[in-house]
């Protein structure tokens, strides 16, 4: 019983997260200006990180947690660097 509940909930939540990644990808491809694309990338990596966490629950490996942590770290650095680039035209001054 609890196995059925968990498997159904995991499938549903992975489906919803992939839909969220699709919405973010639409904004990233379509976005009228550069800041919209950066915002789409930000939402995209957050949804990808959550998808890795659900994959970790599904398979039982805690290794996926480290992957999600690396994605969160690199996503923060990349969004901050892109915002800096949009503001000043260069990343490191």
């Amino acid at each position, binding site marked *: 019983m609890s196995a059925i509940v968990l498997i159904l909930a995991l499938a549903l939540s992975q489906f*919803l997260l992939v839909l*969220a990644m699709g919405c973010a990808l639409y904004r990233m491809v379509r976005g009228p200006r550069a*800041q919209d694309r950066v915002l789409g990338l930000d939402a995209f990596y957050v949804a990808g990180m959550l998808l890795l966490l659900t994959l970790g629950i599904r398979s039982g490996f805690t290794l996926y947690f480290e992957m999600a942590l690396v994605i969160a770290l690199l996503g923060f650095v990349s969004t901050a660097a892109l915002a800096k680039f949009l*503001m000043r035209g260069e990343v490191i001054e």
Partner: protein
Amino acid sequence: MSRFGELPLWVALVVAFLLVLGSAITLLGAIGLVRFETFYQRVHAPTLGTTWGAGAILIASMIFFSFVQSRPVLHEILISVFVIVTTPVTLMLLARAAFYRDRAESGNPPPGMPKL
């Protein structure tokens, strides 16, 4: 899939509810990212995914691994603290960059924004 069956039913129900809640809220934020009109409205939408979306899924992961390994597994707190601290910083940097770009193009601040 045998390790799912060993869990008590109420733990499975709580984990399932938190997983579906978190992913549905993340999807709501992404739909808002698609449907809002201007950039300054859109910048608010994905924060749904980084607050309650990430929070609910991380709490679900903590509860699940604590019961499977029968010891407290709390290292997901790292991700949640990190995401909560960094999201406002990046989005404020991004909104400020967009503000400067809009002002540099038109000479005026965007409508509804105060002059700096």
